[in-house]
């Protein structure tokens, strides 16, 4: 930093970049979340909360002030108005922001990373709306509820400082009885995923694995003499006949998916593979139900 003005310039530029990226991310996520109209699903028990749950005949021991006089006036009995029990749960998100997520095969498709971030934000919006606490597993901030958290999440998600080729899930911040969502292409080291997932399972964390792939990664439409390079350039593979590799590549990809599904099954997680050219709503719906099911 030879230039004294540089830090502020950098800061301003970064903040502009952030501010630039945030609204679209938020807007995309909001729009996506708006497609799923879900109420605040409560715990199906009476408890403290805002929503009406049921009228119950007053029994001895109920305080007189609990009696709902309007309801009681319509009958000879006294009724107590009960609210539904609403408890917040923590959901930890891990969104892969490594270099490989920056890939998109065509200008018309968003990168895998963008797709992942939008999905993460959308599920966050849905969860926050449902009163849950949401946080990122690789962030210093604990899961929190409320609309401010949304902005914080957006800011943290927009930070793609990871220059590694492939990322592996971060499970160190997970406490027992939280839920977790891992969004990545899971193209990197499988051991990392395995370790994170078993760690999580050990702590009783349940959750969902969302694999995001580009259609080209599914199709491998290459021919001829080709040098394949990873996004950050650390990995490289040269072939003389790319077309011949297709079947074996697809086999390996299927193997990787099967391994992920198996691992998820073993640890009681859910696994889903989403493609960037598919409608994100499907992935979001799946994700929402995957989180809701085990609540």
């Amino acid at each position, binding site marked *: 930093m030879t230039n004294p003005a540089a830090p502020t310039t950098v800061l301003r530029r970064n903040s502009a970049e952030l501010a630039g990226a945030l609204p679209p991310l938020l807007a995309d996520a909001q729009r996506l979340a708006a497609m799923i109209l879900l109420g605040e699903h409560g715990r199906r028990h009476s408890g403290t909360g805002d929503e009406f749950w049921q009228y119950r005949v007053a029994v001895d021991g109920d305080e007189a002030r609990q009696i709902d006089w309007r309801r009681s006036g319509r009958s000879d009995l006294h009724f107590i108005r009960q609210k539904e029990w609403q408890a917040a749960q923590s959901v930890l998100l891990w969104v892969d922001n490594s270099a490989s997520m920056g890939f998109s095969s065509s200008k018309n498709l968003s990168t*895998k990373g963008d797709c992942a971030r939008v999905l993460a934000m959308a599920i966050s919006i849905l969860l926050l709306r449902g009163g849950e606490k949401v946080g990122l597993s690789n962030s210093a901030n604990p899961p929190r509820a409320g609309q401010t958290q949304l902005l914080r999440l957006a800011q943290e998600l927009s930070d793609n400082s990871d220059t590694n080729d492939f990322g592996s899930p971060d499970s160190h911040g997970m406490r027992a009885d939280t839920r977790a969502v891992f969004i990545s292409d899971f193209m990197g080291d499988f051991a990392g995923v395995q370790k994170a997932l078993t760690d999580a399972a050990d702590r009783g964390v349940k959750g969902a694995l969302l694999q995001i792939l580009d259609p*080209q990664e599914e199709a491998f439409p290459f021919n001829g003499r080709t040098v394949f390079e*990873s996004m950050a350039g650390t*990995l490289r593979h040269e072939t003389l006949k790319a077309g011949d590799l297709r079947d074996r590549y697809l086999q390996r990809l299927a193997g990787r998916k099967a391994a992920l599904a198996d691992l998820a099954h073993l640890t009681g997680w859910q696994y889903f593979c989403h493609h960037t050219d598919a409608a994100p709503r499907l992935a979001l719906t799946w994700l929402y139900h995957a989180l809701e099911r085990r609540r």
Partner: protein
Amino acid sequence: MFALGPIGFTTPWLLPGLIALPILWLLLRAVPPAPIRRRFPGVALLLGLTDDEVHADKTPWWLLLLRMLALAAAIIGFSGPVLNPQDPDTGSAPLLIVADGTWADAHNWAKRQERISGLLDQASRNGRVVSVAVLSDLPTDQPQFLSADVWQTRLAGLQPKAWLPDAAALNEWRANLGENRFDTYWLSDGLARETRADLLAKFEEKGKVTIMQSPRAVLGLKPVTIKDGALQITAVRSASVNDSAITITAIGLDPAGIERELARVDAQFKAGEMQVETSLSLPPELRNRISRFSIQGIHSAGAVTLADDGLRRREVALIAPNDGREGLQLLSPLHYLKQALEPTADLIKGGLEDVLPANPDVIVLADVAKLTVGQTDGLITWVENGGLLLRFAGIRMAASDLSRGAEDELMPVRLRSGGRTVGGALSWGAPKSLQPFKQDSPFFGLEIPADVNVTSQVVAQPDPQLATRVIASLADGTPLVTRKQMGAGQVVLFHVTANAQWSSLPLSGLFVQMLERLAVSSAPGTLSAEELGQSTWTPVRLLDGFGQLADAGAMAGVAGQELAAAVVSAKMPPGVYASNERRVAVNALAAEAELATATWPARIRVEGLSVADETLLKGAFLVAALALLMLDIVASLWLSGRLTGPRSTGIATVLALVAVSLADPVLAQDTSDDFAINATAEVVLAHVITGDDRVDEMAHAGLTGLSDVLYRRSTIEPANPVAINLETDELAFFPFLYWPIVASQPVPSKEAYAKLNRYLRGGGMIMFDTRDGDIAGYGTGTTPEARKLQKLALGLDIPPLEPLPKDHVLTRSFYLLQNFPGRHQGRAIWVEAAPVDAEQAEGMPFRNLNDGVTPVIIGGNDWAAAWAVDAQGNYMAQVGRGYSGIRQREMAYRFGVNLMMHVLTGNYKSDQVHVPALLERLGE
């Protein structure tokens, strides 16, 4: 030049380069294609995978072949291939190119020009000087030997003439050829001629002679004659090699005045015959219209023969006075006329009223003094349109008051009462003979037989104009025949009877000749020199070498004797010549003409006309090489996978662009079809694009709003409205056009107006909206829009208009309405006026109006603004205030619904008038 079959090479030493091709093959096979670098996250899954084959993808054989072909094409292309290489003409002497340039050349003149052009090219390459001469149009001085390029520029100016070379001019030119030696190319027209031998001898004396002559026979048409009422058509040819069929067409003006084919006849030349005759029988009406005959598909003056008076049979109506008694035939006033005219004219008999509609060429009134007013009017009209009224005197005329006090319109002169008799039993003097005809008389030149004399006549009253009207007079100067021009026609009076009562004229041959000169009858056959007389004949229409008729322009006249000789030349080209009323045709081919093929001595080289041209193939080969290389680029891209994959978009775009640009016309076709299909699949409202964006947008939104309302309230379910460009779009698809008037909009082009008028006639409706209903009513012309409307409507076929009457069908086609507000509560709107005879029937609420939808509605209430809704369905313009505004908009919509109902169902509601009557009838 090195040659392989029909292909020669200018630089053959490049050809051994082809040997390098197999080496290239091996090289290309050995070198693998360069790798592509791709970013691909899935590489992690690829790690450790090895290729099955150690060898790189070999370049496939077909790509190699493509490249070899490209290279081969390039090598061959640069070695300069020439198709049909012509032996270079080694001569360096000056070159004389001679073309006959007669009508026989005309049919394939273009080919001859091409041939000359080829010769000039060759001469240009060899640096020879050239002179080009056309024998039918020889220069007066020595041949000019110039550079071939100069002649190349003059080549287009060389045209064949309709006549044959003039022997005298040819001799002069031959003698004038100069001292220098030259080679000669002679493009012969293929017809034998005496002048050829001398000329050939002269050319041979000067140098090498080559003749070019087409082996095809030359066809000609001789003058058509009439025999037994049928046209005798004779076609001749120059070579009698085989059977060949020709079609001869007769061309003339149809009743509408348009030149077209009137009849056609086929003829078949038999092998060995030089001549074929065929006859064509046509009704006189049709035959008289024929202006020329031509052999179909042959463009030369010789294949055209012109029709003249000889072929015309005039229709002559003979009207005799009603005397109501059976006369003796020889005393009939018409007897001698009939005798004179029957061979050469078609006679019509009948009453004047019956004859006039047949529009004869001539009406003869023999001693008819009294005509009714109707007859007189009819005759005047007929004469003024070009008829010839020929009147004869007689007892009745002499006894009547016809043209006595004042000149009768249908008489050339005033008459004295009674007439006179000379040389009779009770009179002095001898019968009068005729005075020789004066120069300005149409009879000038006719010989007067000595035995023609006149004993009685009606006498003309001396008048200032009398002298100009007399065309024949007696020896004592009294007029015998007088004439007056009247409109396009004329009235001629013979002051004697048409029979031999008053004179011996009708008994003489002079009578027939006089009738001929008056063009009452036409002379059969060709005219002799005497008949043609000393008169001068001016050309009217002339044939060019190609057989096209054109106006003669300011050509000088031709003397009668020359015309009789009928030798066509530059001074007297074939064509139609006229003197007074008579017309004579001079044809390129005379009646006695024979065609024969020109023969040449064996020592002379004779070539055909068509010689395979030398074609340079270098360009074609190089283009092929380039195309193959282009193909190679695409193929290599495809092979190496660059057409697919992340980085291929640019290339794919370029390719797609190329494909699109190639497929562009088809695309345009598709879109116009789409336009038609969209416009016709459903009812579509349309508005005219004015060029003012705001108005156009409002019009579109207005029609959208109206469409929505129609959809909700009625069975009309329109699709989205469209904007119409009057210049480019087809209007016929739309039942209704909304045309907002903007003062600044351009006036449509003529074509657009034609389209609009067609649209209006075809049942379309245009609604003009001046949008100024708040400040002016229609017709005041006080606003710029109203003035613009007046300007726009000038070119339109708009019927008389009236303010919308209270019982117009628009007031009840769906809703019952009496006013028609838009955004403005304007005054009257105007529609096509009801017919004057529309009456209100007894007990009916409405007049019984005619059929049809008004083609235009003109108003200024800015309806579109009242109807306009935006994409969300919100109203776009404020209409009125408060509840009354809502009501006004509602009424505007109702008017729109009524309007569309009227447009689509026409006067259906008007027919409701008849419902009571129909019900009554049903009840019975």
